[in-house]
């Protein structure tokens, strides 16, 4: 363990969504009745099977088996002295085909987050889960949360309906920008498309590995469709992306753009510059060579590839199993970079974090 975590902002913390029956308490009569009469009683995504080792670190699984989840979270915040943890609730909204059902669940999840998490500890913050099946309903959900400063981000999954740069989604970004929300894109899928460009893989391991390809898609789309030219204040956070895939993709995208930029004349500067200005990444998982004699040197060379000390945001990804022990950041970070990653970069990325609650 390399020291002090005091004041750190954990940008990816996962409360586990409750059952539809519990969520239905936050729904109106129509949807409460629909949940009951239609038997919508189990709702889990294959993106994070409950018993998968990746979904919960074994020692945390043991510790949390009988614990109140909020109390367990508070104990973690106390122990390390984190200033905030941003709660990203991943499901259950995105897989529904019915946009009205999705909107009802999104609203209920967000209400549940406010009542069962945010109300119980002043250090907790949350992302607004969006029903992206309908951009109009997503905008309604953003507006509903705009006055609650405990919500600091709007959240979508990396695999959805269409690439996120498409103009159909621009009203969502207009609303996010207007109210100072960043756009969080988290690993996970609506499964409205096959996971890979060649269909469905056989194993969960492949499914998880493929999530990184979705981040390529979304970044390419947001840049090439001109989202950042249209919404210059918008910040995008790639959550649980793996990080080290990014520089090779930017080298490639920038080279292609140089060759064929007449196709997208509104992209008027190199994609790698646009990304450095607008895109941030959480640090877990950090796909890197194993630590060892060359480990720290390798991390240094990989960090240099980002060409910026402002892009990384600290995250534990609790309770997902992305790191062992208590070393929550890649080895060998210089002290000043470490402070930026833990505190300064999150504060700069989430303007709503600075609002009084």
């Amino acid at each position, binding site marked *: 363990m390399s020291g002090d975590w005091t004041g750190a902002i954990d940008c990816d913390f996962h409360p586990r969504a409750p059952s539809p029956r519990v969520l239905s308490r936050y729904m109106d009569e129509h949807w409460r009745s629909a949940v009951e009469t239609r038997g919508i009683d189990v709702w889990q995504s294959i993106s994070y099977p409950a018993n998968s080792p990746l979904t919960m670190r074994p020692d945390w699984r043991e510790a949390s088996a009988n614990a109140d989840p909020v109390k367990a979270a508070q104990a973690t915040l106390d122990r390390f002295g984190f200033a905030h943890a941003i709660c990203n609730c991943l499901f259950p909204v995105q897989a529904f085909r019915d946009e009205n059902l999705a909107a009802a669940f999104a609203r209920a999840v967000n209400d549940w987050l406010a009542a069962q998490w945010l109300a119980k500890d002043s250090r907790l913050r949350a992302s607004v889960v969006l029903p992206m099946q309908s951009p109009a309903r997503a905008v309604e959900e953003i507006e509903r949360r705009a006055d609650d400063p405990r919500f600091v981000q709007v959240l979508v999954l990396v695999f959805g309906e269409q*690439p996120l*740069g498409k103009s159909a989604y621009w009203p969502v970004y207009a609303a996010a920008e207007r109210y100072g929300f960043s756009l969080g894109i988290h690993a996970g899928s609506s499964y409205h498309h096959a996971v*890979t*460009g060649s269909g469905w*893989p056989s194993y969960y391991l492949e499914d998880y590995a493929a999530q990184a390809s*979705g981040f390529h*898609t979304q970044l390419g789309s947001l840049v090439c469709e001109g989202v950042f030219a249209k919404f210059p204040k918008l910040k995008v956070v790639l959550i649980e992306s793996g990080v080290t895939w990014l520089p090779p*993709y930017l080298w490639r995208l920038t080279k292609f753009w140089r060759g064929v930029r007449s196709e997208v004349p509104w992209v008027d500067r190199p994609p790698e510059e646009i990304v450095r200005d607008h895109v941030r990444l959480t640090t877990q998982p950090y796909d890197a060579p194993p630590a060892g004699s060359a480990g720290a040197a390798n991390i240094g060379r990989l960090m240099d590839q980002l060409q910026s000390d402002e892009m990384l945001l600290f995250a534990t990804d609790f309770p997902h199993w992305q790191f062992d022990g208590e070393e929550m950041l890649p080895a060998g970070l210089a002290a000043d970079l470490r402070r930026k990653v833990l505190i300064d970069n999150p504060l700069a990325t989430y303007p709503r974090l600075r609002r009084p609650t």
Partner: protein
Amino acid sequence: MMLDAPLAPEAEANERSQATPRASLAIMDGDMHPAPRSLADLKPYMSACWWEVLATYGSRRRHGMLGYEPYPKSAPRAARRDAWPEDGGPPGSNLDLIRKQYLDHYGIEAAMMGPLGVSGQGELNPDLRSALASAINDWQREHFTRPEPRLRSGIVVPDDDAEASVREIERCAPDPAYAHVFMLTRSLEPAGNRRYWPIYGAAARHGLPVALHVFGASGHPHSGGGWPSYYVEEGAAHCTSCQSVVTSLVIEGVFERFPALKVVLVEGGFAWLAPLAWRLDKLYARLRSEVPHLKRRPSDYIREHVWVTTQPMEEPRERRQLADMMEWIGWDRLIFSSDYPHWDFDDPFRAFPTAVPRDRARQILTANAKAVYRLG
């Protein structure tokens, strides 16, 4: 862009001892695209029945367009403007121009051909698919490799149909004109799916590497994120298809089942491979109970069985970072490719930045391919 290229002719000047120094490099090119002058070039190699079907209904693939694709290219046929022959045929169709502009000009000793377009791959009609693949294979051999042995044929397989693919490999493999088996990254199902295993078995049995070239008409967007709008996005995303291929081949156990199999990922660049291997190793450490058929770390399989071609070579601002990536991937795993005659052609003398040591660049230009392709 790459004015600091270590192998540029100027840099070679001190080493010149004869009039044609470039030939002494004996470059091997892992990706060259031949083209028929028109589909009629394939007619002599097809039965009347399937030629008639092709002529009547066209090539029907899972992108829904006849004679074109939904992402308009950046240039006609995505070709270099200077690669159009005077005879009116498309780039890559005229042997004289290919020799003059490419083989002789750069001193290419061997170029691995990969026919794209109407080649049977992704064709919906199963019999037409096989007929076209056989025709394109005979045509390559007769029009290019026979008169010009520096151009090595690729065995195009109708990969949706493993049985027909194996038949095609068995039919072609005895002829040394063929250097590799040629598939596309956007297959109907992930490349490691068991439906394709007979193809890998046949390739390994004949000592032929399997090249998986970007593109293909799977009917799926390049990731689960949906269909992008622009050619620039689709082009940049080919590296994700390459990652899906490597992930699938490794994790589904293809290399465990076929220990002699060699695979080359073509035209997706290469820098993505190192982060992918790190990612897979980490996931394997957590999730190995799901894949008990694997005996080693994913990176071990990759290091032993997977090669990558270099074009389009990534261009970081800090050129040293490209050398870092090459080192992490392994200097012996990289095979130079030009993609002639396409617009994003990499010049063998200018594509490498100076940060890549000259002896390493030479290794990638010449030696590595010899360990992979069947060049006898």
